[in-house]
């Protein structure tokens, strides 16, 4: 994600709301990787809300997958294969929108599964949940500010 590109847009745009939206995305730097830019690039006039639709899908999917994992951790003790399979799905979902920090925690969980490390899995899963909550907050702020900025915001959305 290019901070330079974000800054260049902010300095050229007078809208306070739009600038706030850009700041929200700048704030998300580190949480989202280049894949999020790829998703943004797929948005066009025919699919003007594509990014938000994909993000909404992500949170719907990830919520379900995390619930599956939580249940599996409880009902299937030390079933590392099962835990790993669920987490692989969640990791894949994270990759789709560029949720890099959350993806990294998914990978830590899978490493712990490979080592047969129950405590490591539990710790990693808590971190996955935390990253999920933070990312939701940041993206909700971003989309809210974009909506407030109106069509001008949509037309000059920050290219990350």
């Amino acid at each position, binding site marked *: 994600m290019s901070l330079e590109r974000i800054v260049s847009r902010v300095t050229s745009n007078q809208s306070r709301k739009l600038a706030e939206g850009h700041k929200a995305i700048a704030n998300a730097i580190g949480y989202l990787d280049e894949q999020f830019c*790829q*998703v943004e690039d*797929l948005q066009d006039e025919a699919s003007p809300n594509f990014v938000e639709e*994909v993000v909404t899908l*992500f949170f719907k999917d990830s919520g379900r997958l995390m619930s599956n994992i939580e249940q599996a951790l409880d009902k299937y003790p030390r079933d590392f294969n099962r835990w790993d399979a669920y987490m*692989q799905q969640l990791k894949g979902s994270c990759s*789709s929108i560029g949720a890099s920090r959350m993806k990294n925690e998914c990978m830590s969980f899978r490493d712990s599964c490979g080592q047969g490390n129950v405590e490591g899995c539990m710790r990693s899963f808590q971190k996955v949940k935390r990253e999920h909550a933070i990312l939701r907050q940041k993206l909700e702020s971003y989309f809210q500010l974009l909506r407030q900025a109106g069509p001008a915001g949509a037309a000059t959305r920050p290219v990350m």
Partner: protein
Amino acid sequence: MARKMIRVLLVEDEEINRVVARAALKAAGGGGDVVDEAENGAVAVQRVRDAAAPYDLVLMDKQMPVMDGHEATRRIRGMGVTTPIVAVSSDGLPADVEAFITSGADDFTSKPLSKEKLGIILAKFRLA
């Protein structure tokens, strides 16, 4: 620039990945493509078997419920189908790639799919 219309079978259990893949395919110049979807390997095998016209490309996920990508690839090849099958997986370890190729896939690409990756695939199989 628009390219010729192709028939693609997208085999992927996660909806978000299907949505992104479909958009990436369209962005790679395929606004007119016929894109069928299958949520697991068993459905994919059925789609291939029942297709009115052969697919030009199959994008095959690895881990899916009911039937995984390896098995689906083996079964499709067992039907004598020669359509290019490209494995798509977030696990890019050499052993995973080799397992897919052994199953009968022609190529492998990592998730998530992008316009650029699809462009490379389409060019490789002369579908661009």
